[in-house]
């Protein structure tokens, strides 16, 4: 495989690296770049079907109401046009035609890597899976990784070099840069500044170091709008050195989160979710689940999973932390008073922590000030958790300095004319830098600003040069995971739009010569991979990780002169004033995903909003200010003001308004432009995460928001079954019995015998964290179209697996439940009986199949589906015009036409391939051989899928659990998809009081 792989990657035209003898190769002529010869050949060779329309088509991406004539849909009886077959020219690529292949690489967010395996269909990257050998993936991924493949094919990506907005060429840029570098060389690079995002790439860091060596007076700044400043400052406060902190959640029995969303955000999201769910486990109901206390201002995935959520203002978390610390005997001065409710919470929390020394953990959130982090470290030391559940290592980020400070300095120097050449690589500072730094205005003062980016965005507009960057699937690079483990990220396709990678640009800056990123990365690792470089390199590519590159644990000691108890308690913000909290957007993050339609349309885990952000407030506050959903309010902070619609959010801290970053983009692309409201306009560098004294005024307008769930209570229906551990242990048997008679109820009809396979699925509600990864993985796997805001607002979203979110209890402090709902594949499927044309029928393996080409669209099946999992193509939703988007699609799945019903198929294409392979080998499909997309992606492995006729299958074992129950089983639909009741582990003391 290795030599095939490398051969494939070196042989033109897939090769992302021009041959080094080709001198002029780097600065290709404009024309070459424009109609990307390489790409054209490549496409023509690999997927002829769309070779015909290569002038990449700019028709509107979300143009859903296709203008195709109604009768154009007559697939069944209109004659197919003459189609072509186009073979390879040479077979050296070693690819088996028609068979997908997987390549290991890594996606990065905030600089940190998540290892992935990318599925390539005839050379087209179409789907991303987790890499089991990668520490921060363990085979799972998150929504961002899943969606990143869509960015690759985004027709809005920048495709040409521009100078002051005019199309220009790489040569001209090269020449210009030459001149400047010459000038810079004389003054040792004084005035040369590099601004990048957070960098963990060893190669890139090394390149920049070389640059700084060559130009000693140049400077390198890193900035991410959502960064780890507080974490690093926290360790500096506590230990006097910059450290990365790792949490072994699987070893922790008691987990306390101080506004930390380790499940939904942070540099180890996926891994933390996996570890947390291990502690949650409880598929059997034997092992006692861990207990999670989570204090949060704006509800997060983590606080939603908490046995004891506590909604407090971000500013009050410090007080809370102090109280907790004091209760644990950590000298934290005399904390301010807190509410009685909080008191009991902290008392119980402290008792639990004390009782679980060494098996508990206190985690402070990235948005909390260093002081809170320091407190957390102290508590973890006091509880002997340090070294057990909490470990430390050198910072994974290269030059982990305070990014905000660094940025301030850059701005200061801009004012003092200290900057004359600024190279911005990635990021989007003009959009995302705190408003008080007025980055855009300052930028104009800089004589020469070159910017390399994936999109021609707000920043590009303010720069002299824009250089198209490569997508991570287009170029060689490397990156480190949260624990320092390094991955070589290899390209799967030549740059679609003639982009260059940061490595190539820096190679040029350093040496002034062409060097392909492939060579750059190899040259960096050659001395570092031991004697037998090639095999080490190949195994690194194959495994997706570089063996032994993980950062070792560091023994750390608290600063001796550490004095936190004499720190004055924070000025107790008076109760009348409101607090504004900035949160990363669950889908758009810092805004870099704004043009990704999958993420835009993905319902936010808690609000279930799509296509917009909103000002989230608690029900109590809404009542006091007499606000309703969709009321537009003015948020005024100092003299900055933005407007945003209100969305009432249970479990939100009272007297606080939270709004997510990442919206209000103006140059994101056709998908992201002008959506939502830009919270950066209020954000300031000294209060990057929350600010007091927010003024709110009703604007007297309404702004329509598109949500996918209008009702949040279960109306006393047994939809999500929940029990505390104790309750469960009391009547486990009973529950088991109940549900068995529910699913196996008597029926008038003789059962259909299925001696072959009998596919079934279970979903564990105890471990489902509601992250939506399944939804978007399914979207990527099954060519599910995006319908746009108006259609979502009309209740026409297309997701095959949705995650229902229910609230239970008091609106201000409710319990939150998530329930993923795919097709139940009922054995007595109500949808099938009413279909007049046999489009919805059962197959002999118990699948409820939907035959698109037979469907006439009566929609009777949807009416008759109690679970409402069926989705209808009210219009021609699947984009028939944008060629690059066609290239993204999964060739194994039919692209649905207008007027047909569709729904979850249990990834029947994967089953079919598994069946065929097994049949050819003359054996049965092995358990775990067929993995559905949702199952594969799930960070907590809440989904189990397999053959119920296989006595040894995992799914059969799980279904034997007393927790197993059928949703709406009383309807005797006999679903193949069942749920494991949710088991929570609240502290009896708290629940009692």
């Amino acid at each position, binding site marked *: 495989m290795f030599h095939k792989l490398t051969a494939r990657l070196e042989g033109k035209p897939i090769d992302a690296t021009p041959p080094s003898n080709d001198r002029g190769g780097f600065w290709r002529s404009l024309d070459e770049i424009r109609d990307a010869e390489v790409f054209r050949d490549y496409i023509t060779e690999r997927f002829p079907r769309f070779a015909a329309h290569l002038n990449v088509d700019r028709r509107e991406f979300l143009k859903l109401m296709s203008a195709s004539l109604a009768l154009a849909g007559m697939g069944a009886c209109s004659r197919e046009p003459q189609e072509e077959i186009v073979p390879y020219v*040479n077979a050296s690529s070693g690819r088996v035609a*028609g*068979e997908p292949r997987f390549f290991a690489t890594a996606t990065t967010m905030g600089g940190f890597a998540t290892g992935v395996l990318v599925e390539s269909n005839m050379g087209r990257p179409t789907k991303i899976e987790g890499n089991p050998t990668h520490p921060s993936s363990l085979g799972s991924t998150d929504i961002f990784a899943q969606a990143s493949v869509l960015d690759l094919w985004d027709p809005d990506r920048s495709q040409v070099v521009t100078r002051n907005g005019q199309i220009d060429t790489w040569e001209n840029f090269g020449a210009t840069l030459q001149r400047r570098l010459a000038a810079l060389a004389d003054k040792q690079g004084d005035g040369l500044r590099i601004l990048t995002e957070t960098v963990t790439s060893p190669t890139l860091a090394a390149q920049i170091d070389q640059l700084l060596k060559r130009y000693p007076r140049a400077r390198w700044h890193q900035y991410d709008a959502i960064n780890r400043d507080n974490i690093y400052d926290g360790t500096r406060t506590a230990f006097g050195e910059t450290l990365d902190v790792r949490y072994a959640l699987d070893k922790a029995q008691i987990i306390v989160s101080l506004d930390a969303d380790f499940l939904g955000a942070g540099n180890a999201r996926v891994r933390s979710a996996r570890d947390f769910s291990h502690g949650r486990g409880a598929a059997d109901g034997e092992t006692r689940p861990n207990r999670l206390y989570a204090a949060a201002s704006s509800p997060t995935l983590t606080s939603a999973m908490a046995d004891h959520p506590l909604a407090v203002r971000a500013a009050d978390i410090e007080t809370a932390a102090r109280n907790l610390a004091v209760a644990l005997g950590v000298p934290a001065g005399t904390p301010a008073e807190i509410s009685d409710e909080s008191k009991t919470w902290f008392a119980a929390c402290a008792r639990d922590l004390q009782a679980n020394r060494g098996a508990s953990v206190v985690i402070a959130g990235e948005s909390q000030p260093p002081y809170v982090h320091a407190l957390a470290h102290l508590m973890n030391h006091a509880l002997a958790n340090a070294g057990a559940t909490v470990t430390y290592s050198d910072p994974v980020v290269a030059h982990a300095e305070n990014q905000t400070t660094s940025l301030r300095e850059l701005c200061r120097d801009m004012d003092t004319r200290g900057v004359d050449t600024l190279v911005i690589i990635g990021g989007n500072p003009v959009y995302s830098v705190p408003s008080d730094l007025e980055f855009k205005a300052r930028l104009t003062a800089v004589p020469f600003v070159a910017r390399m980016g994936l999109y021609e965005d707000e920043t590009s507009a303010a720069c002299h040069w824009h250089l198209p960057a490569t997508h991570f699937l287009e170029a060689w690079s490397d990156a480190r995971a949260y624990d320092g483990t390094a991955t070589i990220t290899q390209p799967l396709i030549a740059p679609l739009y003639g982009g260059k990678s940061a490595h190539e640009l820096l190679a040029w800056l350093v040496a002034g010569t062409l060097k392909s990123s492939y060579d750059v990365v190899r040259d960096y690792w050659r001395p570092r991979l031991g004697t037998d470089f090639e095999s080490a390199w190949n195994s690194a590519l194959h495994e997706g990780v570089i063996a032994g590159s993980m950062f070792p644990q560091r023994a750390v000691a608290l600063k001796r002169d550490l004095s936190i108890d004499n720190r004055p308690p924070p000025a107790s913000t008076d109760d009348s004033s409101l607090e504004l909290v900035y949160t990363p957007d669950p889908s758009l993050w810092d805004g870099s995903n704004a043009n990704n339609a999958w993420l835009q349309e993905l319902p936010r885990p808690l609000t279930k909003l799509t296509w917009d952000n909103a000002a989230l407030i608690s029900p109590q506050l809404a009542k006091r200010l007499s606000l309703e959903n969709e009321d537009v309010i003015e948020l005024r902070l100092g003299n900055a003001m933005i407007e945003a619609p209100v969305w009432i959010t249970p479990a939100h801290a009272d007297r606080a308004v939270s709004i997510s970053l990442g919206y209000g983009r103006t140059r994101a692309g056709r998908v992201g432009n002008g959506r939502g409201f830009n919270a950066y306009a209020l954000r300031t560098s000294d209060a990057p995460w929350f600010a007091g004294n927010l003024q709110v005024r009703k604007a007297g307008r309404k702004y329509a928001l598109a949500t996918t769930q209008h009702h949040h209570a279960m109306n006393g229906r047994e939809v999500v079954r929940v029990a505390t551990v104790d309750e469960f242990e009391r009547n486990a048997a009973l529950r088991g019995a109940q549900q068995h008679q529910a699913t196996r109820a008597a029926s008038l009809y003789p059962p259909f015998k299925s001696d*072959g396979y009998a596919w079934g699925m279970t979903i564990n509600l105890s471990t489902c964290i509601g992250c939506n990864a399944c939804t978007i993985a399914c979207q990527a796997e099954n060519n599910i179209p995006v319908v746009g805001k108006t259609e979502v607002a009309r209740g026409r979203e297309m997701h095959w697996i949705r995650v229902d979110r229910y609230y239970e209890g008091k609106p201000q402090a409710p319990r939150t439940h998530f329930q993923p709902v795919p097709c139940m594949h009922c054995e007595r499927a109500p949808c099938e009986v009413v279909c007049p044309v046999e489009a919805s029928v059962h197959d002999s393996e118990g699948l409820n*199949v939907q035959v698109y080409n037979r469907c006439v669209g009566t929609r009777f099946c949807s009416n008759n589906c109690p679970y409402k999992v069926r989705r209808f193509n009210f219009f021609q939703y699947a984009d028939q015009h944008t060629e690059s988007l066609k290239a993204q699609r999964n060739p194994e799945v039919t692209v649905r036409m207008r007027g047909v019903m569709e729904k979850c198929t249990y990834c029947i294409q994967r089953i*079919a391939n598994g069946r065929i392979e097994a049949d050819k080998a003359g054996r049965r499909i092995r358990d775990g051989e067929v993995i559905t997309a949702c199952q594969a992606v799930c960070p907590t492995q809440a989904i189990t899928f397999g053959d119920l006729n296989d006595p040894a299958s995992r799914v059969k074992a799980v279904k034997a659990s007393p927790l197993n129950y059928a949703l709406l089983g009383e309807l005797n639909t006999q679903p193949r998809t069942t749920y494991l009741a949710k088991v929570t582990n609240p502290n009896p003391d708290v629940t009692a009081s």
Partner: protein
Amino acid sequence: MAQVFEPRLVLWLKLSALAVVAFFVVVILIWRISIAPHPSIGSPVEQIVPFSHKHHVSDVGLDCRYCHTTVETSAFAGMPPTDTCMTCHSQLFADARMLAPVRKSFASGQPLRWNRVHDLPDFVYFNHSIHVAKGVGCETCHGPIDRMPLTWRTATLEMQWCLDCHRAPEKYIRPRDQVFNLHWRPPGSQLILGKKLVEEYRIHTSSLTDCSICHR
């Protein structure tokens, strides 16, 4: 009172009625023919190079798999890359006019573009490898390919055509080692042999007519 309908008028009416009926019959026939899924059965498909299976299989004696390399492993039988052609044609007929496109492709790296002979709708998923593995001969679907100077289709590829075999595979399947033999004839009764092979190759006839076997 005068007759409203004189005999002549009646006759005329009857004739015109006939004419109307005839007209509609003709129109419907024309319509059916025009939308018939595959009017091109039996008529060779125009190709950039007049490739003759007859020559390469019957005369030269190439095995199907020499060019269609992935037929046993993949859904797609595989089309020979240009260099497969050139292995011979760099020597044989090295400068025949009709091979010009092949040489051009080899030189320029531009692939040859063949017109599809067998084209299934996009919502049908056919897998060569499993059919080969279960003893469906090339000839069974592709006809006497070794006697085709230019290639044409011999099967309608309509759903009922697929079902014909999926409902009763014993009518068609042959021993695995005879799959690529274009002249194989059952030694005795096909049905008896077929039934035996269905057993032997574990062909689950019960599930062969599931919609999900071909549609996804």
